[in-house]
């Protein structure tokens, strides 16, 4: 249908958009290996010295540890709550069912400052001092939707008849869940968990409202950039964060796609 000219124009547009998307990311890679401590282009030489220096920085290590711990805990909570919500919505009919999927998406559909403030005022109201745990609660709240969406999408594709067959053959609810349901949805659970972790590991806005004196890695980066301090180390940390969020995402993507034809 498209004329030759239109095809060429569209292809050129795609190339332009890809360049726009990737030039900044490539630059992050290059700057991490910058030998100089001055951030100018072209970089003066290649070196690994800032990797060594960032690795030795105690602040960065503490922040990294905190981010990993908070991410893992928040992900666990999100997996539990998100998958039970998905099961409830998929399996049962009840009043306000539509509202559930709307409600779980709210923490990420509403502007970040609103979610942050709501959580902040909840903690203040109950006199819960901002701490590691408030970070976890905040992250879990906006990660639930990720697990929920992944699991419910899978449940919709899995035929219910397999479970009915299992029950007809005499398996009880637990056996059916353990041997039939769980294997069929397991990759979507893992994919949801990986994406939730990636989201948590990188979050800044909500975290600034729910963290007390603690720094997660993104908070450390934000502070350092704002104050213009330790920028060569920031280059390295930023590259590391990008790599670490990307691995789970790629895995999740693979898992969801592999499972595609299997359960269709």
């Amino acid at each position, binding site marked *: 249908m498209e004329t030759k000219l239109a095809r060429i124009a569209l292809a050129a547009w795609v190339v332009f958009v890809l360049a726009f998307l990737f030039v900044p*990311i490539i630059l992050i890679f290059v700057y991490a290996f910058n030998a100089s401590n001055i951030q100018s282009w072209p970089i003066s030489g290649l070196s690994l010295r800032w990797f060594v220096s960032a690795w030795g920085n105690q602040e960065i290590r503490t922040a990294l540890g905190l981010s990993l711990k908070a991410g893992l805990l928040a992900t666990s909570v999100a997996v539990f709550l998100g998958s039970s919500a998905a099961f409830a919505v998929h*399996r049962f009919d009840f009043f306000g069912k539509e509202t559930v999927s709307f409600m779980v998406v709210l923490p990420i559909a509403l502007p970040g400052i609103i979610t942050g403030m709501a959580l902040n005022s909840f903690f203040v109201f109950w006199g819960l001092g901002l701490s590691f745990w408030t970070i976890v609660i905040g992250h879990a709240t906006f990660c639930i939707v990720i697990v929920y969406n992944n699991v419910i999408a899978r449940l919709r594709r899995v035929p219910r008849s397999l479970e009915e067959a299992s029950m007809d053959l005499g398996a009880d609810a637990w056996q059916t869940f353990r041997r039939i349901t769980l294997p069929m949805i397991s990759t979507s659970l893992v994919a949801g968990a990986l994406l939730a972790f990636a989201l948590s590991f990188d979050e800044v806005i909500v975290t600034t409202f729910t963290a007390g004196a603690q720094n997660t890695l993104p908070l450390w980066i934000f502070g350092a950039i704002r104050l213009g301090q330790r920028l060569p180390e920031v280059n390295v940390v930023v590259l590391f964060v990008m790599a670490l969020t990307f691995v789970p995402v790629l895995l999740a993507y693979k898992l969801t796609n592999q499972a595609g034809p299997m359960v269709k």
Partner: protein
Amino acid sequence: MNDRTHTVFASTADRLSAVLSGAVRRLSVILWRKPGLGAGLLLAPPLGWFLLIYIAALAALFISAFWTTDSFTGEIDRTWTLSNFQAILGSETYRLIAIRTIFMAAAVTITDIILAFPFAYFMVRLASQRQRVALFTLVLVPLWSSYLARVYAWRLIFANEGVLNWILHGLGFQSVEIGYTNWAMWIVFSYIWLPFTIMPIYAALERIPYSLFEASQDLGAKAWRTFFKVILPLSMPGVVAGSIFSFSLTLGDYITPVLVGGPGSDFIGNVVYANVGIANNVPFAAAYASIPLVVMGLYLMAARRSGAFDVM
């Protein structure tokens, strides 16, 4: 362990597992007969979490917008008043900040749709299967890449000695001071949320059956007519879904204004954050945050009608 204890042990284990499986069985029967109970058990934890921690807090927050903070003691005075809203509407600065935020969110949304639509269209209509998978993955990379990393990259680009000026010099132009301006914010926001716009538009375009394109042509429509009468209306839910992300995310952001905006580029989020953290005036912050909340609420309601939630 001798034989006897072993037998005793085994039989106890047997009995135990019999009792357990009996219990499980009875429980399954109960749950089967009363599906409401199963739904309740599954739903209680997530619903409790959301209602208690999030929804209630959200509601409480916006009730507090009608309260005030005593400027001396910092205590919250729970008398109903519209004074926060009056202060916002009466102040030139606060009005300007709100308008700047909403205007920027709109500009970014439009820019992203313009960038995303032809891209998604190419993916669906012209790309081969392999190219499509590759492009899909290539959009996924920046979508999930660190937000801070990507904002920071633009600081490096806009810097005085950065890539942009290096290119301009190479082409024989004068260097520009684009960093720390509204232009910088516009570019960075458009950059950050572009993948979030591409994905839903792609999803919507992919759903349009190929036969509709053919039917339109068979009936004699020119390419542009097919586009405006068939493709564009059918892809609208995707465009709207994509715009929810770019609009809402820009509206609620305050990190990018801090990192690439200039001194006079505060967003609603900056004011809100300062009032929660530094000034400790939560009622005022809540009143100000109700602007993006109301704007987003209206937007989401309109979006829901257009079927945007099906492609999100």
